[in-house]
């Protein structure tokens, strides 16, 4: 079922937590709400669940306005950050709980619990208490409790943040598989951009209660709507250079102090036309900076720090006062202090208006 937020605002006392949110989630879509802590993403989810009431605006599930519906009447299921399994009940009873609420016959409950326990691979723990299960197993039970009631919408509030890194990868794959299988509308809240990129069909990036950008992971990564999104998505983060548009001897340049980068006339005119001032911020992702030999390079920098992550190396470079990060494969060997030439992939430049912080190109 589709979900829609229409001018939704939530205030706690006088603090605005969600600010005039407009968001449409298609039926069957997995939408990730991404943002730093305190950005209003969890509150948004809780409003959809019915655990918070919006101060203004409307929320729709399908074609029904659900503002005044109790959580129990919304047919949504939620997976909580700390699992929220009922500690005094067995895993079987935990899974059966939503069906008991629906007053389903005993026989059907037993059948459904077996079925869901199989899907979530917890069929061997049914008689145990939640405390006797590992974090990953508990999370699978929590997931099962959500699946079992066939909800219209799945709500997931950072379900993987309490699980260790290796298991998180597995669970992420499990979740993706489950979503492919059930094809149910899912709203997934996380502050982990890797999780958002790998899971989301679309991502809604939030900051201080406001929606910054909605788009596919690719769109968000390649064409971030503003400086915040550019800085928040991607690891290591995008390199940002404050600079200005200049024109010298018919050459169009972006001058960032440490270096000037020549750009095409076309790009120059486009930026000039759309930018409110001549001050811009040039954003270049680490992936779009390559270290090359002298001839083809454009900018000189000095190797400052090397961080190997196994598959790649993050190279921190110094250029005057500026620090740049790039990512190279492990076949290249550098020494600290070495002078290297950098080449930028101009096609992947992001140019932001410094005043409005919005993207131009």
């Amino acid at each position, binding site marked *: 079922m589709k979900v829609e937020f229409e001018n939704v605002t939530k205030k706690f006392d006088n603090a605005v937590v969600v600010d005039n949110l407009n968001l449409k989630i298609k039926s069957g879509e997995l939408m990730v709400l991404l943002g730093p802590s305190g950005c209003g993403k969890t509150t948004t989810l809780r409003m959809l669940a019915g655990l918070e009431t919006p101060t203004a605006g409307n929320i729709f599930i399908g074609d029904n306005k659900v503002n005044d519906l109790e959580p129990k009447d919304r047919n949504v299921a939620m997976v*909580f950050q700390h699992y929220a399994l009922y500690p005094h009940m067995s895993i079987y009873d935990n899974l059966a709980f939503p069906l008991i609420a629906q007053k389903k016959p005993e026989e059907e409950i037993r059948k459904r619990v077996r079925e869901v326990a199989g899907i979530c691979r917890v069929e061997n723990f049914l008689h145990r208490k939640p405390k006797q299960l590992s974090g990953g197993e508990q999370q699978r039970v929590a997931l099962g409790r959500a699946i079992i009631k066939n909800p219209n919408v799945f709500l997931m509030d950072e379900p993987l943040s309490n699980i260790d890194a290796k298991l998180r990868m597995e669970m992420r794959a499990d979740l993706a598989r489950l979503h492919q299988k059930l094809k149910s509308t899912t709203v997934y809240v996380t502050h982990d951009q890797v999780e958002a990129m790998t899971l989301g069909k679309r991502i809604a990036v939030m900051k201080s209660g406001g929606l910054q950008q909605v788009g596919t992971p690719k769109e968000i990564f390649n064409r971030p709507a503003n400086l915040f999104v550019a800085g928040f998505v991607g690891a290591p983060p995008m390199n940002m250079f404050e600079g200005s548009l200049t024109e010298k001897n018919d050459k169009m340049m972006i001058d960032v102090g440490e270096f000037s980068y020549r750009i095409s006339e076309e790009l120059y005119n486009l930026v000039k036309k759309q930018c409110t001032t001549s001050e811009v911020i040039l954003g270049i992702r680490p992936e779009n900076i390559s270290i090359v030999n002298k001839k083809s390079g454009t900018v000189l920098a000095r190797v400052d720090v090397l961080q190997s992550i196994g598959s790649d190396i993050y190279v921190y470079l110094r250029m005057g006062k500026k620090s740049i990060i790039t990512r190279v494969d492990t076949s290249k060997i550098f020494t600290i202090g070495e002078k290297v030439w950098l080449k930028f992939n101009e096609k992947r430049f992001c140019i932001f208006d410094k005043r409005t912080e919005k993207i131009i190109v």
Partner: protein
Amino acid sequence: MKHMSKICTYGILVIFSITSLFPPVWIALTSIKPPVEMFAMPPCWVFTPTLQGYEQVLLNSEFPRFLLNSVIIVTSTVLLTLLIGSLAGYALARFRIKYKENLFFFVLTSRMGPAVVFGIPFFLLWLGLGLIDSYVGMILVYIFFNLAFCIWMMRGFFEEVPAELEEAALVDGFSRFEAFRKITLPLVASGLIATATFIFILTWNEFFYSMILTNYAAKTFTVQLPAFFGAQRILWENVTAASTIGMLPPLLFAILIRKYIVRGLTFGMVKK
């Protein structure tokens, strides 16, 4: 060193046990001694037990009636205080309430003055309301004195239960009340029982208010004990027998639920 500390620990525990057990054991022993041997010095340990005191108290006095009064008043107090106090504690633990902490502090202030301070105001109020010497009057007074403690305890227990659990139940399809009954209540059961025990013991032993606010109809057993102090002599066999009987209900109560008391007292001390 290790042995020393162990000996010290046990030593302290033994001394503590003796000092706290001595008075009740002494009273219980005295209640079955023949009157002539009661105050024998040195105490006589070998005697022919007699149930004369018990016979007097249970069959030939009005003590059973006052004991029943105590049972009725105390049980009602415990149940009503728990009901009101746990609902209030729940509200304080869960809901966003304006000036919540001030409100909570205000509730606690009802226990900040010594009980005697409230004696005369209560007497005059109850006199005006016609509540002197009535069950309702006594129950109301005891609820007043126990409520602050109950709210304070229960708030702590409710705060130990993550709100997420109730929210999960709400989303799973239950109403707020059902979520409370099926999830929260079983999880705070031990806390509820521990609180009940404290209220029971405090109220059972209460003397002052019963003395000034009751006369006969709602008089509790504690006030009846001094009635055995006769004009000619103190009926020690009756006093000790009545006292022993009076000690039994809290003792039984505590033994029955001691498992929960320990759990209630250590609730929340284990890291989740």
